[in-house]
């Protein structure tokens, strides 16, 4: 860990859904301007951790501090969240969707939506409703929505799922470029090999806990593997 103040601090975070504990005491610090890949089997708690960081799940106990604040509302402008579903209206085109979300963030720049759509490799002039996009295009548009408010922290849940290899590599390059611009990126993925050479750290989760953090991508470290 560097001496730079962490952008996110998670302390003894527990999240229970009824009697099931999805997160079981996660404690970690995350430095700014780094690209974190969050890995683990299904049910390891990756998505729950991301949703808790995004303020969508309330911790059962423990604390999450983002950019020095315990209240997500205070820093929500600095966070971009991309979920596994697209978080887009199927009946509207990409630019219409982004136009609406821009209003929610008070973004007055009318070109911003078109800029981020171009940045993810799509055409802002595309009039087709999002419901008629291919899955890969939906993923890209979803990433464009997450980038809309120019966040300092990006929380991405399965950004490369159903995206062809070439496009996924393009997305990784884009994300690495954003990291180089100073953004902190968290990407939950099952396609960790895509992030080799791009991610700064691989975080392994198992049964609701962080069990290992490695600088290089390997198989799950043996000491933590069951």
């Amino acid at each position, binding site marked *: 860990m560097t001496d730079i103040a962490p952008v996110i601090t998670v302390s003894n975070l527990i999240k229970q859904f009824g009697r099931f504990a999805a997160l079981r005491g996660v404690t970690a610090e995350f430095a700014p301007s780094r690209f974190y890949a969050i890995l683990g089997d299904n049910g390891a708690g990756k998505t729950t951790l991301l949703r808790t960081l*995004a*303020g*969508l*799940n*309330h911790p059962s106990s423990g604390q999450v501090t983002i950019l020095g604040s315990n209240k997500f*509302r205070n820093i*929500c*402008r600095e*966070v971009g*969240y991309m*979920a596994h*579903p*697209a*978080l*887009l*209206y*199927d*009946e*509207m085109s990409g630019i*219409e969707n982004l136009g*609406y*979300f821009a*209003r*929610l*963030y*008070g*973004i*007055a*720049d009318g*070109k*911003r939506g078109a*800029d*981020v759509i*171009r*940045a*993810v*490799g*799509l*055409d802002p002039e*595309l009039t087709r*409703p999002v419901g008629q996009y*291919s899955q*890969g*295009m939906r993923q*890209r548009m979803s990433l464009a*929505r997450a*980038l809309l*408010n*120019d966040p300092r922290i990006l929380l991405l849940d399965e950004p490369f799922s159903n*995206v*062809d290899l*070439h*496009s996924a590599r*393009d*997305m990784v*390059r*884009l994300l690495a*470029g*954003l990291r180089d*611009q100073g953004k902190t990126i968290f990407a939950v993925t099952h396609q960790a090999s895509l992030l080799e050479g791009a991610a700064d750290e691989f975080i392994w989760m198992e049964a609701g806990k962080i069990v290992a953090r490695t600088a290089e991508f390997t198989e799950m470290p043996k000491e933590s593997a069951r």
Partner: protein
Amino acid sequence: MSGTLGTSSPPLQTPRPEAAAEVPPSAASAPSGITRATLLKDLRLEWRSKDAINSMLFFSLLVVVVFSFSFDPSAEESRQIAGGLVWVAFLFAAVVALNQTWARELRNQVLDAYRVSPAPANSLFLAKVIGNFIFVAVLETLMTPLFIIFYRLRAIGPAWQLLLVAALGTWALVVNGTFFAAMSIRTRSREIMLPLLLFPISIPAILAMVQATAAILTGEYSARFWIVLLGTYDLVFTTGCLLLFETVLNAE
């Protein structure tokens, strides 16, 4: 640029730092601006899908036609029962729109995108209420002439008061309906839950609507008390829903 994926798609470009700097870092949209944007978005979605308005119209049309064949009331009897008939038809039809209003926010979990944004919860609520008010008002505008024809209605009391009753009554239905529809969206059988929650709490409003309508149609007594009751009901429940909606929106 075609926008299609695959090897033909152009390489992704990272956004230029200066492009990001063009965005005002914390310029907050006024809540009224967000309400308007959300309302326009909902109207656009409804215009394209016609999910709510078609279902409501079809349902109301069925009620009018079936009841007109089931009863053969005289003009005087019609004036007595029309208030109840009209409002019950509109109430049931409104439930269709109210269920749709949140269903489209659940597809692709778009509601989460709103929840992570800085937009206030009440802006979303007000936009939904106004949107539903417009949908139900359109339904009432289209169906009222049919009710008048089928039931040979003519107001003996001051007819202009019917507009007031319709506006206050519709608001009463949609403000509670939007709130309880939001409460029930995370339940497994939300289509059943909404009427179970909405109908009992709407009884005072429905009573006031029916009595006021009957008073105006028959001219036998003043509708003033019932209109004041409706206005008070609207005020109390609108305030209550606005105070509680943020909790409902962020409930897990």
